């Protein structure tokens, strides 16, 4: 591991990224808020402003913005789905009609504006969620959910699922190697044929899973799970001023967006300056 790096869910990030040091509950609440706000906003200009503010805030907090490049192919995939669907299959009235199709669908200036809104909404959710997940460590899931009142058993199960996925990746590799040694050609054929070949690993993997399930349940029962008394924790997370300020900012922003949506047409489609 490089010096000054912290291991988070899928990667190593610079420890100067301020969100890494935030209270786990702040990370979980941020994840929810950064998804809810673009969901409420419909207009393209406010969505573009939200996305820009998000990127600026991330740069100020020293977030690893370069990691967002990994998600560009996904954004292109969504973009082509949105464009295809809206160009060939929508009827949104506007001031100018650019193309009309024999099946009754047409493209107007408002179609293009709506497409832009959808793309900005998805991009905002993607950028916001990714920036939070880049700061999230596996222990944060348990501690964050627990401090938000989620039962320990549920938070523990979620965390356990993540840890088990790494074990099953090893199991899958072992089963695949055994099949290859017996002469199976798992890489042959088109993608669907390859997927069918992959599914032949199902029975041995399932036997491993059922055995592991029993071992795990015995181990948990021996450890007296779920805990009946007061549980103690290895790590203690204290609320800093930064955490309290971040939570207050998130609450105020959410409330502001909800109120603005209810009392003015600014955030509803098409919004300022197109209304």
């Amino acid at each position, binding site marked *: 591991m490089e010096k000054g790096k912290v291991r988070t869910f899928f990667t190593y990030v610079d420890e100067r990224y301020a969100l890494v040091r935030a209270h786990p509950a702040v990370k979980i609440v941020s994840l929810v808020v950064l998804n809810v706000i673009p969901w409420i906003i419909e207009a393209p200009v406010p969505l573009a402003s939200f996305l820009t503010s998000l990127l600026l805030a991330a740069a100020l907090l020293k977030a690893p913005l370069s990691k967002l490049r990994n998600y560009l192919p996904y954004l292109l995939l969504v973009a082509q789905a949105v464009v295809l669907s809206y160009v060939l299959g929508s009827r949104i009235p506007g001031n100018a009609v650019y193309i009309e199709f024999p099946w009754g669908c047409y493209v107007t200036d408002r179609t293009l504006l709506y497409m832009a809104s959808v793309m900005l909404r998805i991009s905002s959710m993607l950028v916001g969620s990714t920036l939070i997940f880049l700061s999230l460590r596996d222990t944060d899931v348990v501690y964050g959910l627990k401090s938000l009142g989620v039962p320990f*058993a549920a938070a523990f199960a979620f965390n*356990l699922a993540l840890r088990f996925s790494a074990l099953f990746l090893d199991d899958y590799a072992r089963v695949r190697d055994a099949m290859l040694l017996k002469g199976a050609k798992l890489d042959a054929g088109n*993608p669907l044929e390859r997927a069918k070949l992959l599914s032949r690993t199902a029975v041995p993997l399932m036997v491993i899973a059922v055995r592991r399930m029993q071992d795990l349940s015995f181990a948990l029962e021996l450890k007296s799970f779920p805990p009946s008394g007061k549980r103690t924790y290895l790590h203690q997370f204290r609320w800093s001023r930064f955490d309290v300020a971040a939570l207050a900012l998130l609450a105020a922003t959410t409330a502001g967006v909800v109120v603005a949506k209810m009392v003015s047409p600014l955030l509803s489609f098409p919004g300022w300056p197109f209304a």
Partner: protein
Amino acid sequence: MVDARKVAVTAVTAGLCLPLALFAIILVPVPGLPAASGFWIPAGFYFVMTLWFGVWGALGGHIATFLAMGYFQGFTLQVWADGALGDLIAPLVALIVFKLMGAHPDLKDRKDKMAWLIGVPIASLVCGLWVHTVNLYFGVITWPFWWVGVLTYFIGDSLAVFIVGTPLLRSLTSYVKQSPMYIWRD
């Protein structure tokens, strides 16, 4: 009440399905539908886990789908509402069909086979309707593309569950019956 067995079922199902979901997305991606796969291998596993171990198996499938699709989509609200909730509903629908028909997951008699043949397509259809209505609501697809999405989802998901799930149920149910987590009693 959550106990050790239920947590074990959920965690192991999620851990098993998560890498399979990632492989499915990488091996058979569907152009036009983000983080979708034309052959959703994990569905075969979490359908079977739900039929053997009940709701907690479905919850494991839900967590796995959320994390796997989230890896490609950055864990957005749409991912959770879309594929992940749909994949929680689908195996539960199949479980309800089995319960209503009084069938068992070992697929031994005619009633069991009928429940499997009817339950899987119904569950895939319900899930397809859910997923593409959410896509429509989030503005990712338009109304004329909705039925195309539902139909392709229905065919693709049913196919994967039948191909992966049938041999699992037929060959492993007698083995799984020994487990204290198995929910059916003869």
